[in-house]
């Protein structure tokens, strides 16, 4: 298989799958869900109600302390396995759904810890100034605190986003057709190493674009200093 056929194949397989798009889907859907979800998790983690904080801490520690690959398998195969125990036969949903759920929950846990660090690093005086001026708690958070948090955490978020690009390849473990799944299949069936190199170049370019985009975000927030 020559390189242009390979790339065409990775765009659209004869079976009608789109491996590159699969990778892109996981990436964007995970970000769209996990970035806001992380804020909610971080706020629950910082809740003054100890029970809530402890429960969230426990989940964060499990999600960060076990392999994403394992979590992915639990989310993908767990429901139908459990259903079978009770005598039901659950048809497998579109694989993208469990993959995105697993990735989003996992990344939300990481993002939550980044947000938490950002929220805790905003000086007490910012809250007090807002409080004296009569801002409600939610207005204080949305108008005053969150923008400063975002500026502080962009570099750490960039790190996670770069990792996410590479982590999308883990979806091969549940046979969701994304780039790496297809690359591995072709490499084995055609006994060639080239697909791996193509995949490497693809991930590298993807991350190059991510770095450029995040650099732009960072720059757009550089009009003020904290």
């Amino acid at each position, binding site marked *: 298989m020559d390189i242009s056929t390979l790339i065409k194949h990775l765009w659209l397989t004869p079976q009608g799958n789109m491996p590159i798009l699969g990778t892109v889907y996981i990436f964007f859907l995970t970000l769209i869900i996990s970035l806001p979800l992380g804020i909610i998790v971080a706020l629950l983690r910082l809740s003054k109600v100890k029970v809530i904080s402890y429960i969230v801490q426990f989940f964060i520690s499990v999600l960060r302390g076990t392999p994403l690959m394992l979590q992915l398998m639990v989310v993908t195969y767990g429901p139908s396995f459990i259903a079978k125990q009770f005598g039901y036969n659950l048809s497998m949903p579109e694989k993208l759904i469990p993959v995105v759920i697993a990735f989003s929950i996992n990344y939300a846990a990481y993002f939550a810890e980044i947000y938490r660090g950002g929220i805790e690093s905003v000086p007490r*005086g910012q809250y007090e100034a807002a409080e004296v001026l009569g801002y*409600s708690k939610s207005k204080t958070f949305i108008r005053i605190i969150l923008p400063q948090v975002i500026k502080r955490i962009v570099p750490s978020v960039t790190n996670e986003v770069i990792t996410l690009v590479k982590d999308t390849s883990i979806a091969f473990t549940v046979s969701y057709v994304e780039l790496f799944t297809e690359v591995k299949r072709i490499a084995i069936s055609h006994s060639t190493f080239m697909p791996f190199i193509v995949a490497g170049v693809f991930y590298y370019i993807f991350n190059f674009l991510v770095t450029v985009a995040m650099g732009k975000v960072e720059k757009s927030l550089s009009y003020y200093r904290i």
Partner: protein
Amino acid sequence: MNILSMENIKKSFGSNEVLKDISFKVNKGEVVSIIGTSGGGKSTLLRCATLLETIDDGTITYMGEDVTYYDQNGKLCYAKDLNHFKKFFGLVFQNFNLFPHFSVLKNVMDAPVTVLKRDREEVKKECLELLDKMGLADKATAYPCELSGGQQQRVSIVRALAMKPDILFFDEPTSALDPELTGEVLKVIKALADEKMTMVIVTHEMAFARAVSDRVVFIDGGVILEQGTPEEVFVNTKNERTRQFLQNYNS
């Protein structure tokens, strides 16, 4: 009329009793300076007055309305709608605490527009006038990080004034500034005093306190040891502890 009345205020942090039965009133148009040693309770009194700290015992009243009350079990409670009382006062912090991501104009406009829900154009006009008055007209579009400490503090004074408070509190407004920048801030406060703005100023600037105040209050060890006109406190000092404190300042 008393704009603020605090009676028999007690406040402890753990076992550390910071305010021991302090009563403190401010009349309309009055400029009161609070002086005293660090850790003596000055700032805590101010933080209790501005509702940043809750008192353990006593009563706080703004414009004759009770901020705190005792329920039928004799337990101290705060009024439900504290925002109603926050409209009465403004606070200028030692460290300015401007919002770094807002321009100067947005810093001073945001609360009147988003909290008080006032008309944006009207607020903008007022704020630009206030900034102009403080010599900051050309800084409206600048960000706090582009300003000197003295300019930042003047912006934070405008931010407080834009809420049209009945009383303005200052918590050591010049303590975080380079000595050569204190003058510009003190000048602004002096101008407000001349306009009969009701103010309470916690300060270490004795000459300033003497020049600008109608009344000087000396707080030490969580109690008011002496108060009176600047003349009474600085010249005809009665309390031995006050005299010691002032001597340390003059030497």
